[in-house]
Each structure stands twice: as structure tokens, then as C-alpha cells.
């Protein structure tokens, strides 16, 4: 039965990806992409990689899907009909040939590698030193902490890049409001938004706390927080701040800042990102809570978009 499940799931993953790329309807493409992300999440669950499954369902399907829906709305408001022009037949035929060849090449390369979880043992042996039990959190925040530190700055950099696209007369005004109530008929959204934000906060706090020993962690928690903020913004419970709001900026740099300071403090004890023995878990948890907060705010603002001019209609 497990084999049947895996086979059907893989077929559906390839099928939904093909549908997302081949349909002529942009909304259908976005829906198929969200379905594709959810199925990929199930594939990671089937592989017992629950940490990745959560990240894929929350970020790959959830946040990316919301982003695509919002972009579609913004483009339609600008008069874009979102029709992807037909490409000439020779180009499509050539692309089919080239991509089939490439798939065969990548496929044979994949077959030449025997799947193995070689690093699982050594990582598990090192975990008691850190005092945590989730090996993925161990890799993300201790063994490969450098990657994760830079990754948080990539996320922050993306927000700065998006903000930098604001026209001169808009900066530093807030992004366009998502409030449903402003355009009438938002009482359900309002109630749901007010109910969900505290629930999302609790869920995010739980995911960070669980993340040291069970699947979860700062990125998954930050995404849930961002989701709660978006729903609250649609319900009118939260309004976007101006881009030069100092509290907002403090929240955005809190996570990467705490991470960097702890990393630099490690130099005094030996090397960059060194956690003193016995304090590793406390430091990892402190980094993760501040990261979750910053990631939540950053993702929500990435979805909200850049500053808009006062006469902007959205």
C-alpha cells in the first residue's frame, strides 16, 4: 500500500506541475501550483522529512501561493490580461526535445547515486552536546549556522529590494491596504482575522518551542505568524506601518541581529558562531524566537509589497 501511495503521489505531483505550466488560465495555473506545493508537502511527509514538509506546505505552497494571487490581482488592476502569448511551434518542439534530453540526463545521474542517510548517524552523535533532539534544527542553527545566518539576511535583503522599487513620491508611505471591510461586507473577515491572529501567535510560539526536539522551527513558525498577520490585515485588525517606522525596523532586524551578535560573541570564546558548552540550547532557542518574529514580519511585508503613492488605487 505504501508503494501504491508513493506511485500515485509522484504521478500527481508531475501531473499538477504540468497542468500549472500548460493551462491557458492564469488563475488555474496558480491553483495548480498551490496544489502541487501541497502534494510536495505530502511527499516530504511520506519520506519522513516532517521539517521539510512543514516548510514546503507553509512557504512553498502557502506564502508563494498567496504572493502569486496578490500579484495576479495587482497586474489585473493595471489592465494586464495575464495571457501568455503563444510560442511558435518550432520553439515548443525544440523545447520538448531539449527538456526531455535534460530530464533523461538528470534522471540517469540520479540513478547513479544510491540513496543513503550517511550523515544521520554522525549528526545524531553530536546532538547531545547541543542539548536538542531535532537533528534538522541542529544542522540549521549549529553545524551549518553560517548558511542560516546568511539566509536570514537574504530574506531581509529581498524586502529591501522590494521596497526600493517604490516610486519617489510614495516612499516611505505604507503598502496598499488589504482591508476587506473598507470596501464593504467584511464582518466575517473581520471576526476571523481577530480570532486568528492570537491563534497564529500561539501556534508560532509552539512551533519554535517544539522545534528543538520535534519537527518545527523558526521558519515554519515565522510563516504561520505571517499568515496570521495577513488575515488580520484583511480583517482590518492590523494596518501596515510606514516603511520608516522605527519599531517596525527594529522587529525586522531583531532576528538576524541577535543571531549575528551571538555569532560574534563566539569569536571571543574561540570562533565565529561558537556556542559555549552547556549554553547551546539556550542560545539556539533565543535565536529561534527572535528569528521567528523577524521572519514573520518580513514575510508579511514581502506579501504586502512596497509603498504606494497617496492616489494609488488597489
Amino acid at each position, binding site marked *: 500500500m505504501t508503494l501504491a501511495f508513493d506511485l500515485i503521489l509522484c504521478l500527481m505531483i508531475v501531473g499538477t506541475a504540468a497542468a500549472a505550466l500548460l493551462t491557458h488560465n492564469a*488563475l488555474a495555473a496558480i491553483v495548480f501550483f498551490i496544489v502541487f506545493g501541497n502534494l510536495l508537502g505530502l511527499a516530504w511527509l511520506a519520506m519522513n522529512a516532517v521539517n521539510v514538509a512543514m516548510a514546503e506546505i507553509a512557504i512553498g505552497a502557502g506564502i508563494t501561493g498567496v504572493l502569486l494571487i496578490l500579484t495576479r490581482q495587482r497586474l*489585473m488592476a493595471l489592465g494586464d490580461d495575464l495571457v501568455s502569448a503563444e510560442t511558435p511551434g518550432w520553439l515548443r518542439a525544440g523545447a520538448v526535445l531539449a527538456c526531455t534530453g535534460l530530464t533523461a540526463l538528470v534522471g540517469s545521474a540520479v540513478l547513479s547515486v544510491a540513496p543513503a542517510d550517511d550523515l544521520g548517524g554522525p549528526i545524531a552523535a553530536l546532538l547531545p552536546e547541543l542539548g536538542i533532539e531535532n537533528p534538522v534544527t541542529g544542522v540549521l542553527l549549529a553545524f551549518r549556522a553560517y548558511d542560516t545566518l546568511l539566509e536570514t539576511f537574504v530574506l531581509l535583503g529581498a524586502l529591501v529590494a522590494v521596497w526600493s522599487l517604490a516610486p519617489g513620491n510614495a516612499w516611505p508611505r505604507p503598502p496598499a491596504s488589504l482591508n*476587506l471591510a473598507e470596501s464593504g*461586507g467584511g464582518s*466575517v*473577515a473581520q*471576526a*476571523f482575522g481577530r480570532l486568528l491572529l492570537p*491563534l497564529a501567535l500561539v501556534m508560532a510560539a509552539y512551533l519554535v518551542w517544539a522545534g528543538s526536539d520535534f519537527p518545527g522551527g523558526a521558519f515554519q513558525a515565522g510563516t504561520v505568524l505571517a499568515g496570521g498577520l495577513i488575515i488580520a490585515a484583511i480583517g482590518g485588525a492590523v494596518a501596515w506601518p510606514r516603511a520608516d517606522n522605527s519599531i517596525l525596523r527594529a522587529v525586522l532586524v531583531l532576528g538576524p541581529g541577535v543571531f549575528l551578535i551571538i555569532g560574534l560573541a563566539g569569536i571571543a570564546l574561540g570562533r565565529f558562531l561558537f556556542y559555549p558548552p552547556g549554553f547551546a540550547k539556550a542560545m539556539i532557542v533565543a535565536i529561534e524566537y527572535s528569528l521567528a518574529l523577524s521572519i514573520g514580519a518580513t514575510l508579511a511585508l514581502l506579501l504586502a509589497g512596497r509603498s504606494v503613492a497617496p492616489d494609488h488605487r488597489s
Partner: protein
Amino acid sequence: MTLADYLVPALLYIGVFFYAAGSLGLLRFQDAELRLHALTKADNVGLGFVALAAALHWGSVAVAFKIAAVWLFALMAAGATAQLMARRAKTAAERGTDR
């Protein structure tokens, strides 16, 4: 064989039946408003039965609470989104801006 050994599969397949009914409804009903019923009602009943089966199977109170949280949240979200989707469908149809 205890009672739970029969009860868990029974509840599970009842849940799967409701899921199948929801999918068929989404496929076969004539217009969007009818399909919305199939989607937000049948599927969440199905989820309820599956959740009950899973909670009985685990037999742990802590896990049962977590499963209850999943189901209650799904119900809450389905209630709110069903309302909003129906309203969206109505205004879009009235204004001819169905896109």
C-alpha cells in the same frame, strides 16, 4: 479483537466516504453555490470521522487534543471562507467581473 479494532477502521472508512462524496459533489453539482456546499460541509464531516479514527488509534489524550485542534480549526476556517467565497461568487456574478 477489542471494540476499538473494529471501530477505528469503521470510522476511518466513513470519513473517506464523506471525502469521496465531497469530491463528487464538487465535480457533479451544477453551479458554484451548490458545489460550495459539497466542499465545505461533506469534506469537513469526512475530516471529523478520520480525526476521530486517528485519535482512537493513538489512544493518547495529548494527541487527541492536538487532533481536536486541527479539526476545530478546519471547521472555523471552512465556516469563514465558505461565507466569503459565496459572497465573492455573488458579487462577481452580479457585476459580470468573474475572473
